[in-house]
């Protein structure tokens, strides 16, 4: 009896997923956030977020400190799961799959959703091993394939030409900007579809920042990118869409040029023109 109920539920779920999949595909959507609420213990950090993200687009997430933008970003690869007191409601779909489904493998999810943090965090290994590591723990043993993938990832992260002659030197010998691009290359090596960037250039000088921004522009041809940034000019330069968060609410999300020339909400206007925040 239980099996039949489970099967029926599973069939209903499949139908729902197919419908959503068709909808997402029709609108070229990669990600859909539905009525999403997030709590740290009793504190609600995100309030009824609804958002759709197009495939191969860059979404800039802006807002004052504490507005929930990093919490939101960390939901996409369930990084927040490491905190015991958290709770969430609603769905985040990548393609048609809800990433909070019980049967979803979080390791698979994190393989599909790469993340780069504010501070570069290379492993205490060689440049080569930093990239190869992710492949090896995913069971890839073919040395030629790994070498090829390392080169490809470093090229995609616009780092290859700078470090190709010292692949076996420590990653710590690289500059801050190079380390950050190495982290991006590391994320790219396992071929994710979505990239999460949490203030990836905030600790970098203007030249390294420009390289990261150029890289984001290139990467969106292959990936869907969400970037949290405190730098509004950066959001304006790199993102196709900008989402403005305030006190856990998504105030508005629109095409970036609209947000920065004529936002719909006064509170967004006040934030982007520096009247608060």
């Amino acid at each position, binding site marked *: 009896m239980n099996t039949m109920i489970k099967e029926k539920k599973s069939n209903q779920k499949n139908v729902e997923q197919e419908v959503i999949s068709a909808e997402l595909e029709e609108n070229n959507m990669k990600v859909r956030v539905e009525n999403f609420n997030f709590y740290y213990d009793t504190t609600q950090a995100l309030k009824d977020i609804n958002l759709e993200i197009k495939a191969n687009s860059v979404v800039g997430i802006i807002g004052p400190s504490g507005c929930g933008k990093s919490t939101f970003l960390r939901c996409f690869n369930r990084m927040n799961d490491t905190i015991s007191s958290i709770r969430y409601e609603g769905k985040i779909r990548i393609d048609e799959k809800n990433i909070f489904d019980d049967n979803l493998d979080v390791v698979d999810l994190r393989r599909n959703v790469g993340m780069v943090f504010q501070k570069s965090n290379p492993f205490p290994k060689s440049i080569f091993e930093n990239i190869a590591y992710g492949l090896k723990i995913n069971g890839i043993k073919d040395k030629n394939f790994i070498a090829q993938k390392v080169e490809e990832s470093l090229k995609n992260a616009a780092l290859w030409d700078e470090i190709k002659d010292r692949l076996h030197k420590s990653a710590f010998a690289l500059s801050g900007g190079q380390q950050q691009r190495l982290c991006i290359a590391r994320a790219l090596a396992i071929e994710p579809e979505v990239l999460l960037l949490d203030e990836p250039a905030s600790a970098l000088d203007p030249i390294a920042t420009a390289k990261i921004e150029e890289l984001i522009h290139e990467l969106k041809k292959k990936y869907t990118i969400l970037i949290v940034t405190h730098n*509004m*000019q950066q959001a*304006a330069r790199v993102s196709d869409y900008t989402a403005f968060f305030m006190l856990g609410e998504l105030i508005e999300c629109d095409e970036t040029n609209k*947000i*920065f*020339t*004529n*936002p719909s909400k006064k509170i*967004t*206007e006040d934030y*982007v*023109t*520096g*009247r608060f925040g």
Partner: protein
Amino acid sequence: MERHLDEELSKLNTNLLKMAALVEEAIHRSIEALKKRDKDLAQKIIDDDQEIDEMEIQIEEEIIDLLALFQPMAGDLRLITTGMHINAELERIADLTVNIAQRVLEVADQPLVMPLVEIPRLANQAKLMVRRAIDAFVNQKEDIAKNVILSDKDSNKLRTVIMKELINDCMVKDGTTAPRAVPLLLVARDLERICDHASSIAEDVIYMIKAKVVKHHRERL
């Protein structure tokens, strides 16, 4: 809290207002010079244009600084880019008053080909449109800007009336009046162009206030 940028925007407003006052005065004096056939006044308009040119450069530099240093967004960005357009439009209006002054120098020593009735009316219309367009900018009044745009058709009509009079009543009847009639035709054209510039300022003002592009799209008014 007033931002540093607000102070700078206030300075920009003040400077544009100063320039607009000079330009309005130039329109007024150009038509006074024509009515009185005052060559000294006409020459003064030509000489004083340099001050407006300098002002245009100064305001343009201020605007470039604002863009580079403050990287303005949203309403601030629209205000600054509108200021940039207005600055250029005002300078072009001033150049048109110089054209009128040059026509005055051509006709001042000769008898008028016809009594000046419609040309001063058109000049008043031009002056009023410029004043209202600037008023709409400073006070962020969309309705005033709309009225400026809509009143542009009156200036076109007036210009047509003037042209018909000069061509049909003067030049067709007596070809020898052409050397005195053509400068007045050009004056009418310049005045009508001033009205066009005022209208263009008003279009920018609507963009500034509503982020709505009405240029080439009057149906959006």
